[in-house]
């Protein structure tokens, strides 16, 4: 059986006056998955999300939700989306329950539905005992959970999360990511998530779209992306002196070496042909009378894959 995409983005261009933000983007977002959108800050991720929910209208092209044009049927379609923006959007002076009750009413839910849904969501996001607590009294992680709960009050088919872990510490970040997975698994809701922290996408998403210069640069699963770029293995070296000023000029002259980074007292060297590069590195180190204390050939992380993609001309 053919699976129709939940959302189809067809040749969408978005311009703000003369500023081209998205340039002829096309992609399909499947049902029930976690779809990641990655890109540098200001690359148009948030604009794309706003286009998906019909909040913005494309300059060119069209977006379809279950084959219906989003921009033409916004009022009907927006009920199918839950949106959590970069900054949690709720009333800090209202309690968690009051916030959910308020937004539930605005989505046209019956009082009884709101009550049962609130109970269900508070359990889902782990705020069961905090219903009467004011929004402003919650910790950053809890505020993010409340924001997600508000986005889900009307049982949307798609949950859109715009950089949901922004400004959170690693522990809270993990907490939120686990919550997103849980929501996706338990309620079957499709999730579209944007981030510039690639570790999140690596663990969370089924499909990743990388936006570069207003275009979809890559669209694949994380493993496939990693595989595609794994041939660009990196060489990690460390010298006894940990002073790389002598060897760096020689390494930079090598055409095979594409990138050199100093990180944690070590050099991370990317090369087109790692084996050849390894030999040249040894030669240069010896020539400069330095002693290698550590050397390793490693697969790149998704961060590096992303950096490679972004660095590609």
């Amino acid at each position, binding site marked *: 059986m053919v699976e129709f995409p939940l959302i189809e983005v067809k040749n969408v261009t978005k311009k703000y006056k003369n500023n081209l933000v998205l340039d002829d983007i096309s992609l399909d977002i499947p049902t029930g998955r976690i779809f990641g959108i990655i890109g540098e800050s200001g690359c148009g991720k948030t604009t794309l999300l*706003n286009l998906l*929910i019909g*909040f*913005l209208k494309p300059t060119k092209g069209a977006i379809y939700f279950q084959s219906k044009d989003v921009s033409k049927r916004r*009022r*009907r379609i*927006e*009920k199918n*989306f839950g*949106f959590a*923006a970069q*900054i*949690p*959007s*709720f*009333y*800090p*002076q*209202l309690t968690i329950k*009051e*916030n959910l*009750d*308020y*937004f539930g*009413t*605005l*989505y*046209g839910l*019956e009082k009884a539905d709101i009550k049962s849904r609130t109970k269900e969501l508070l359990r889902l996001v782990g705020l069961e005992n905090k219903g009467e607590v*004011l929004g402003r009294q919650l910790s950053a992680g809890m505020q993010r959970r409340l924001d997600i709960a*508000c*986005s889900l009050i009307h049982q949307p088919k798609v949950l859109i999360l715009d950089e949901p872990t922004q400004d959170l510490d690693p522990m809270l970040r993990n907490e939120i990511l686990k919550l997103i997975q849980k929501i996706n698994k338990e309620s079957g809701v499709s999730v579209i998530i944007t981030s510039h922290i690639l570790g999140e996408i690596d663990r969370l998403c089924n499909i990743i779209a990388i936006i570069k210069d207003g275009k979809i640069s890559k669209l694949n699963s994380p493993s496939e992306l990693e595989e595609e770029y794994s041939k660009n293995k990196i060489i990690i070296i460390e010298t006894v002196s940990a002073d790389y000023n002598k060897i760096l000029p020689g390494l930079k002259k090598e055409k095979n070496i594409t990138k050199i980074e100093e990180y944690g007292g070590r050099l991370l060297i990317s090369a087109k042909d790692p084996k050849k590069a390894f030999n040249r590195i040894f030669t240069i180190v010896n020539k400069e009378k330095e002693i290698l204390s550590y050397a390793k050939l490693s697969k790149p992380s998704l961060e590096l894959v992303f950096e490679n993609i972004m660095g590609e001309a």
Partner: protein
Amino acid sequence: MNPVLNVFQRAGAIIKKDFKLLLRSKSSALILILGPLVLILLAAFAFNSASIYDIKISTYSVAYSDLSNSFVNALKDEQYSVQQSGNDTECIETVKAGLSHVCLVFSPNMELKNDLNNEVKAYADYSRINLVYMVMDTILGRLSNKSEELSLTMTKDVMDKLQLTKVELTGRSSSLNALSSNTRDSKAKLEESYTSLTKVNSGMKVFNTSDAKEQVLDLQSENNLSESDISEITEMLDDIQTSITGMATKVEDSATKLNDVKGVLESSEGEIENVKTSVNKVVSSVDSISVTDPENIVAPIKTSIEPIGKKTHLGNTFPTLAILVIMFISILLASTMVVREKKGRAYFRNFITPTHDVIFLSSTFLTNLAIVFLQVVILLGVAAYFFKGDLVPVLFSTIITLLLTSSMFILLGMMIGYLFNSEETAILGAISVSTILLLFSNAILPIETIGGTIRSVVSFNPFVVADGLLKKVMLFKYGLFSSYLIYVILGFIVVFSILAFVSREVEKRRYM
């Protein structure tokens, strides 16, 4: 769910949320709810009187007289604080230094005499023009009262004397009549006497003893009377003749004199008639003075300004004060609430819910209206204190006027809120708009002092319109729809509603 019910449910949720936000932000609640109440109460306490308190007057005169002292005492009686200065420069300096509001310089030895120049010069600080007018009005009024009092005394004296003269003359008029009548009688009697005398005289003149003598001679011849007897008789007859002739002369003389007296009496009668005519003229002339009341002669036209409506300052200024409070509360509250919502975290989530903009707009409006209505209730409480029973017949019209006015200003405030991007600029905008509306109104200077086209525009200033309507309704008991002003307010409500909606849409596009 029933779509209509759903709309009300959504609007209710928004209003409930707005109230919660307002009440949970204690500073906002304090400023928005208690602020106006304090303002109204302070105004009520401060202006609830028709008296003028603590107005200081300096006076100076080279030589105070009873008259100038009476002016000073009159001012003291009027609750003014009066202090006497050592010289006129010192007196003027007290005004410059702010120690007194007016300096009055009286002419030396003021007295009510023809050859004296009685002048009272008033020096005042015209930069405090309203106070100056008020003080000068009272002082000049008082001085004019005193002058009037003096004129009244003098005029009364003149009038009393005139009245006395009239009474005297009227009293003497009967004596004159009697005199005239007596003169006429005397003249008539004189005429009779004269006629009798003339007749007697004529008889005497024709009296002749020669016939008697002839008879005596006849008798002598017939009776043979002696010559001596006859001669004796004839002599007697001659004596008689002589006496009668003498008497005739005297009678004629008396008749001539009587005629002279008659002429004098005729002349006296004429004189008496003349005096009578003069007396009558004087009496009728005094009678013809139509204004005999000295008060009316001193001030033939009495001018007094009778307040239509209330007699206290607050009673008259209450409508303006009420509209002023409502204008500031409504515009500030609405603009602040809109900007706070706009700048709040949840604005975006509200935006993406399937709730129509009109519901948001209406709910914000209703929240504001409910809060302002609370203020209106308090205002009416204050009004009930000042207007007492007078308020009951116009209560409904007053409430409707105040609610319509609130609606107009709330929508204006909402429009300002949607146009500005930060709370600070919105508050500045709201205060600026309110101040402009206040400045171009009767509250500062009469709008009639503004020239031509601008005055026509200013007469449609929402503040002026609302103030005018409330005054008509509250003070002059006009029916709500008797004045065109209510239609102007309704027009403003429609226009501001549209503008508020358009502003929200513009803001939304900017947001998107």
